[in-house]
């Protein structure tokens, strides 16, 4: 059996402590190691994606214990895609963090970064429900550290709320897992699927409760209504590269919903009728609305971006909630897109805000490279709002097209399209104030709002962003372009991934097939 499947977890797990404890006084050494590791991870994840393309679901039995008694890792197309997406995003974010010097503004950035990756990879790979909890916690606690990297009052307050919300979520996760184990006697996802499918109807209540709790847990991570409240403050106050990396964190929640609620609590499992299917769709629709309204109503840049993330999660989850292979495939494409576009915008916001006073949406004297930033913002906004020529438009078309075969078509159309409109208007207002209106201010003019207490001019004129600082933003945007151009093959892969998901027998036999001797 190939051990490569565990490499995305083990490599950062080994690298991180070395960075943290051996290289902690030498930032350049830490940077080198972090880069080397992240590049290697990207290569490994790419290899795994290629390996998974064939359609075979691979199970890796940790400790050589047969499923369902030990923990298994499962690699299928979906998990491979998630790995690849994460590693690419990580690389982009890492370059930014290093080029802008963010990584040196606090301790242990690179170690936490690697641990963060480890947690995310672990969550995508695991085939065990409780192990999913463990890796959720790994990625969460690393994200706590990343979130408050650099410190600061508001960031700490927001970080505190972030931790509290997630601890509440983790508690619910455990309640859910407990109920699940109490009802089925197992933790392995494939085994759960089998047992849930064979569950007598008169014993459904517990499993139904567990399925609902799990959905809420994942909904917190995915920032779905009504548990999305944590996201704006968190993303707005996280260091921008971290916020960019967090773009994948909401997807972990979405991934978990996709995984668990197709393989285990699939829509065709009779005892679960009405548990998730009936709720996820309205929830996703409201999430779209909250995101869009938030974008339009935002008076600051970071919340605007944060709400756009919520909106994009809603859009994606609308497709997920329809639970058909076609909508899921569309959702996956949109997910890849929204991850990268959110990252691009947060990275760009970092470049811009480093040269402005605060992120309030109001005109200030034009900063250096105003034109460049305006262009990048325009591109990023196009990406996020789902306008052509970037991949968001195709993603949206895919979702809407796939939704036509579902009963919720009208609602989905209205929500997604109206949401897009508000998002477009919101971004247009923001961009025009940030980058255009500023050009109307004469440099000699005094502050237009002298009594709001904030100095209009920075003490030192900020330096222009170097090539390496801008490169990650550009790269993320370029990836959106690439995703659009190669939409065909990408979509084919994701479509195959979705088909694989809905044919859970492949997953189950891959995991359980080898473990019959127990």
């Amino acid at each position: 059996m190939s051990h490569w499947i565990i490499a995305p977890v083990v490599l950062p797990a080994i690298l991180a402590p070395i960075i943290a404890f051996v290289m902690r006084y030498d930032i350049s050494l830490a940077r080198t190691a972090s880069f080397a590791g992240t590049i290697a991870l990207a290569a490994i994840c790419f290899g795994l994606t290629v390996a998974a393309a064939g359609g075979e679901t691979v199970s890796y039995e940790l400790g050589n214990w047969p499923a369902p008694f030990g923990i298994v890792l499962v690699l299928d197309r979906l998990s491979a895609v998630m790995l690849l997406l994460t590693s690419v995003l990580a690389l982009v974010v890492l370059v930014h963090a290093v080029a802008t010097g963010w990584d040196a503004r606090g301790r242990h950035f690179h170690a936490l970064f690697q641990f963060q990756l480890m947690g995310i990879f672990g969550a995508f790979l695991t085939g065990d429900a409780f192990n999913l909890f463990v890796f959720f916690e790994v990625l969460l606690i690393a994200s706590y550290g990343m979130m408050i990297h650099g410190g600061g009052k508001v960031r700490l307050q927001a970080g505190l709320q972030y931790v509290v919300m997630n601890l509440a979520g983790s508690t619910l996760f455990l309640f859910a897992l407990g109920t699940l184990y109490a009802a089925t006697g197992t933790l392995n996802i494939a085994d759960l699927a089998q047992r849930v499918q064979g569950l007598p109807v008169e014993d459904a209540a517990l499993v139904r409760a567990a399925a609902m709790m799990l959905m809420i847990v994942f909904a917190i991570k995915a920032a779905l209504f009504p548990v999305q409240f944590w996201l704006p403050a968190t993303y707005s106050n996280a260091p921008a590269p971290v916020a960019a990396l967090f773009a994948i964190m909401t997807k972990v929640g979405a991934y978990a919903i996709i995984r668990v609620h197709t393989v285990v609590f699939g829509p065709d499992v009779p005892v679960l009728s009405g548990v998730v299917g009936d709720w996820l769709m309205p929830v996703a629709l409201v999430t779209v609305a909250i995101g869009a309204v938030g974008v339009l109503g935002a008076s600051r840049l970071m919340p605007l971006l944060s709400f756009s993330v919520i909106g994009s999660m809603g859009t994606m989850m609308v497709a997920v909630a329809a639970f058909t292979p076609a909508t899921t495939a569309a959702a996956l494409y949109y997910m890849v897109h929204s991850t990268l576009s959110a990252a691009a915008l947060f990275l760009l916001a970092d470049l811009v805000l480093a040269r402005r006073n605060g992120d309030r949406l109001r005109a200030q004297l034009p900063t250096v490279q105003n034109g460049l930033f305006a262009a990048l913002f325009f591109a990023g906004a196009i990406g996020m709002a789902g306008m052509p020529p970037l991949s968001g438009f195709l993603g949206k078309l895919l979702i809407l097209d796939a939704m036509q075969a579902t009963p919720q078509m009208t609602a989905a159309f209205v929500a997604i399209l109206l949401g897009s409109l508000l998002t477009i208007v919101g971004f247009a207002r923001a961009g025009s104030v940030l980058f255009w209106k500023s050009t109307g201010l004469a440099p000699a003019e005094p502050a237009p709002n002298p009594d709001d207490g904030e100095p209009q001019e920075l003490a030192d004129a900020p330096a222009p962003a170097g090539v390496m600082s801008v490169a990650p933003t550009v790269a993320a945007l370029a990836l959106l372009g690439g995703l659009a151009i190669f939409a065909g093959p990408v979509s084919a892969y994701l479509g195959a991934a979705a088909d694989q998901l809905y044919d859970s027998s492949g997953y189950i036999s891959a995991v359980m097939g080898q473990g019959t001797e127990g």
Partner: protein
Amino acid sequence: MELLVASAVGVLTASGVYLILRLRAFPVILGLALLSYAVNVFLFSTGRLAINAPPVLQAYGDASYSDPLPQALVLTAIVISFGMTAVLVMFALGAYLEAEDDSINMTETDETETTGKEGEA
């Protein structure tokens, strides 16, 4: 016994929930601690209850054992929640020291400090 365990979980949960809805960081921490007790006992009890049957294998006789798996899970959960609580406490302390206010709710909607003014490295 089952009733006692279930109701204890319930009371711990209720107390924890009440406390996490308070307005200061410290009671919220206490509430989360209570919730963590509650969920640990809950998780533990999913293996059903047994008296004097610790899952430590005995060489002779066919003893009965309580379900070891939930116990292992609870151990993991305890450790994790310990780490989380520690971080939480530190965050609360940090937030208090920075803001001189231990309200858990963010009162000011300050400008984001996301980006320092340090410029480029």
